[in-house]
């Protein structure tokens, strides 16, 4: 069976197609598809953009309004997938098992985010997919100008909006 794919339609910038690794990251894949299918990501923004590092989204509406999320999931960072350029990983708080809807796309090989040990600090960030089409759109997001909004740094000056997320 082929892996599921999801399209992120980014307003004015284009479409990013992501392939999810259902075999190595079953929980993250199921979780991401759950949020896609209930329309959670539609009209959310990439709210944190750090060139040379990652672009993060899926948790806020324009105006930095945080969206309600469902229960956090188990961290699958020990699945052998690496935080390499154009991979998709789950964002979280300092608690390793706190990921809900927010995700990020690596825009560099970020080895230091990979799983090292099943400890509070060594867990790393769970990779569960990769961009298979639309690397140029990711590059455009990483290049937008950023500033600060409230207690959030690195927020794009012009909203980068996910118009809709579609499971193929």
């Amino acid at each position: 069976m082929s892996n599921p794919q999801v399209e992120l339609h980014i307003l004015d910038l284009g479409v990013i197609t992501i392939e999810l690794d259902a075999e190595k990251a079953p929980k993250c894949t199921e979780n991401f598809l759950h949020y896609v299918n209930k329309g959670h990501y539609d009209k959310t923004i990439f709210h944190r953009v750090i060139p040379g590092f990652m672009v993060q989204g899926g948790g806020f509406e324009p105006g930095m309004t945080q969206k309600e999320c469902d229960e956090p999931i188990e961290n699958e960072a020990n699945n052998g997938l690496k935080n390499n350029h154009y991979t998709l990983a789950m964002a979280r708080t300092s608690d390793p098992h706190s990921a809900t809807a927010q995700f990020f796309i690596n825009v560099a090989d970020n080895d230091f985010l990979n799983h090292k040990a099943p400890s509070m600090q060594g867990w790393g960030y769970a990779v569960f997919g990769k961009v298979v089409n639309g690397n140029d759109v990711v590059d455009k997001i990483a290049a937008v100008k950023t500033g600060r909004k409230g207690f959030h740094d690195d927020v794009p000056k012009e909203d980068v909006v996910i118009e809709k997320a579609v499971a193929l």
Partner: protein
Amino acid sequence: MSTPTVLHQPVPHVQAPQHWQRVDFISDLHLDAHEFTTFDAWVQYMAHTPADALFILGDLFEVWVGDDNQDPFALQCIATLKATAQRMPVYFMCGNRDFLVGHELLNASGMQSLSDPTLLDLGVTSKAKNTRLLLSHGDALCLDDHDYLAFRAQVRRPEWQAHFLAKPLTERQAYARDVRSKSEALKRNHTGYADVDTQAAIDWLQATEAQVLLHGHTHKPAAHDLGHGLSRWVLSDWHADSQPPRLEVLRWQREHASNPTHGLHRHCLVKD
């Protein structure tokens, strides 16, 4: 009551290559066209530092009104930064005074921008843990300074910045003079600087697996032991005309770095 501070994860990271033997950290120079002696000391330092990398952790400038400012002082600063950046990597984190530094200045000077906070992994293994410094300007951790945090939230909004940068340069320079005179007043009565919240510092360090928080902003140079093997090192501000002059670089040396803080030393620069 303290305002909760959010550590956004994941935190960006700089990996120090093994050939970095000396790494310099400076902050709070508050460079200004009217402070000639501090500026001259900085130019001398930039030309002669033996460091392999330089990290500037905020408030390099007393105020920065926009990258389109091409007055002689701004051009001199750019030329000085560029000459050093041709010898070694120069990293720039903005502070509460120079948050309007943009892509144009970074490109013209050859500096690499740092997000606040950023982890620096020095690549020294101690007790099976890598030595990691968490670098920040520090202002976001001064949780009791409510007036300032409100101001910070306002001026760092993209809308405020776009509005400000759209004003004529002369108007922005007048604003800069106003900021400077208020800063002078604060320095005189010493009521202006809050301190970093200890618990917030510990939270940030534990969340990032770093051992040392290194920051400026407070103008209270010290090394605080936070327990649990954690510490907080505070950079000094620069003022050449004080007695004794405050011209200080925090330097990390690999040869002394059997544990993260053993490699850190304060170097006072003596004026010529």
